[in-house]
């Protein structure tokens, strides 16, 4: 192949790659206020909660999803419940939780729940302010806001838990919600809440290892994009390895079941 042909071929490849990159960028939906994390069930980008709290929510959230898919005992039209907890530093109303819910697609068959805890940063300390509890479209039939409010009162505002022990309060609430789902939605006969709490307490202050989101890559800086464009168009270098999937998918890995919310949420 002559040098001219080779250059033209490389140029053609480069332009094709760039077009694909720009087309994929054009097709992507607008990013929600909070991106989902690799662990999906717990979104604590500000690291307000303990490592063991995050792992506990991740493990039991995943268990619920698997258990609710049991074909032998569960109506498949209500299978795939997902309960996601997120922390956010800011005011209620500064983010659209319904948009986040629908963007993450929480729950199969619209059987999702999103709990967002709002904090403020005061003297370098995170202070809890509010909670938004959002219930998926089909889940509304199994958990009303009235019942959810009672669960929050019983488990999150449990007077036996210190007001500032957010980890304990969140885990207590999480197990409280799971208890409701296992017993009232999936007709389990028992749910040993205290046993799960005891298990959590035994590892509460342990470091259980890095969360999946620890391996997430940050988005590419502008200078990197300029180098890629120069490399692709000017030199005909085609990015390989993990870079192509990174460019196309942004290193994200959502695991929602496509669940939707119809805006059924309340603030506590």
């Amino acid at each position, binding site marked *: 192949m002559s040098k001219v042909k080779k250059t033209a071929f490389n140029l053609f490849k480069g332009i094709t790659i760039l077009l694909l990159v720009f087309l994929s960028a054009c097709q992507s939906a607008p990013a929600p206020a909070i991106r989902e994390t690799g662990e999906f069930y717990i979104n604590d980008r500000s690291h307000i909660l303990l490592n063991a709290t995050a792992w506990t929510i991740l493990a039991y959230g995943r268990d619920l999803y698997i258990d609710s898919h049991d074909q032998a005992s569960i109506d498949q039209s209500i299978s795939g419940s997902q309960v996601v907890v997120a922390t956010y530093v800011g005011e209620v109303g500064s983010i659209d939780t319904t948009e986040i819910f629908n963007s993450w697609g929480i729950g199969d068959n619209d059987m999702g729940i999103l709990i967002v805890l709002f904090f403020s940063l005061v003297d370098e300390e995170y202070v809890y302010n509010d909670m938004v509890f959002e219930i998926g479209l089909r889940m509304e039939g199994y958990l009303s806001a*009235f019942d959810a409010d009672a669960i929050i009162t019983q488990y999150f505002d449990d007077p036996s838990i210190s007001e500032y022990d957010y980890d304990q309060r969140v885990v207590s609430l999480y197990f409280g919600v799971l208890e409701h789902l296992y017993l009232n939605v999936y007709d389990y006969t028992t749910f040993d809440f205290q046993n799960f709490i005891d298990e959590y307490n035994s590892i509460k202050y342990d470091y259980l290892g890095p969360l999946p989101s620890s391996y997430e890559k940050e988005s590419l800086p502008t200078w990197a994009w300029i180098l890629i464009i120069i490399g692709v168009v000017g030199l005909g270098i085609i990015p390989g390895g993990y870079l192509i999937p990174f460019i196309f998918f942004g290193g994200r890995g959502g695991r929602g079941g496509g669940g939707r919310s*119809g*805006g059924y949420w*309340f603030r*506590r």
Partner: protein
Amino acid sequence: MKKILIIVAGALTTVFVIIGALWIAAFNGAVRKDAVVSETRGNVHASLSARYEKVVVFIDAIEDANATVLTYLETIMDARTAFADALDNNNNAAADDAATTLDGTFVTLVAYMEDNPESYNTVGLYSGYLGEFSASTNKVRFDIGEYNAAVRIYNTHIQTFPNNLFVAGRVALTEYSLSNYTATLPSFN
């Protein structure tokens, strides 16, 4: 001469084909968008119905109330009956009127109870009802937002050129008012 006739016939055919295509696109587009409007309106009514079912539960829990509260309750129950009847008769305008009365009175009632807790006997349940009131309000607002977006798309479609030439007989739809759902609760203190 024959060549000119062929050219003219070809040009006319092209013009007719283009006009036909535009007509079909305008008509079918309007029908499709109108169907979305109907669906989203149905969602609004479904959310309102669900909300009113919960209002009735709320009212049933009030075993003891003063005269002011009783007046509100009667208004709410009458409006709820009117709303249900209007839906049964596919009378959207009457349903919306009843919903306006019902929601307006319910908002007033909740505000009154918030300011006068001695006027009823369900203090322990108040937090839960407020949660339910808030969530069902947010849901109705969400569905109204979806409906209004569908209405805007429909209206834009039938009013923009060249669609307005082909579907001029269609009337632009009116968006829902959010007044009852965004209003600040009145104070009775």
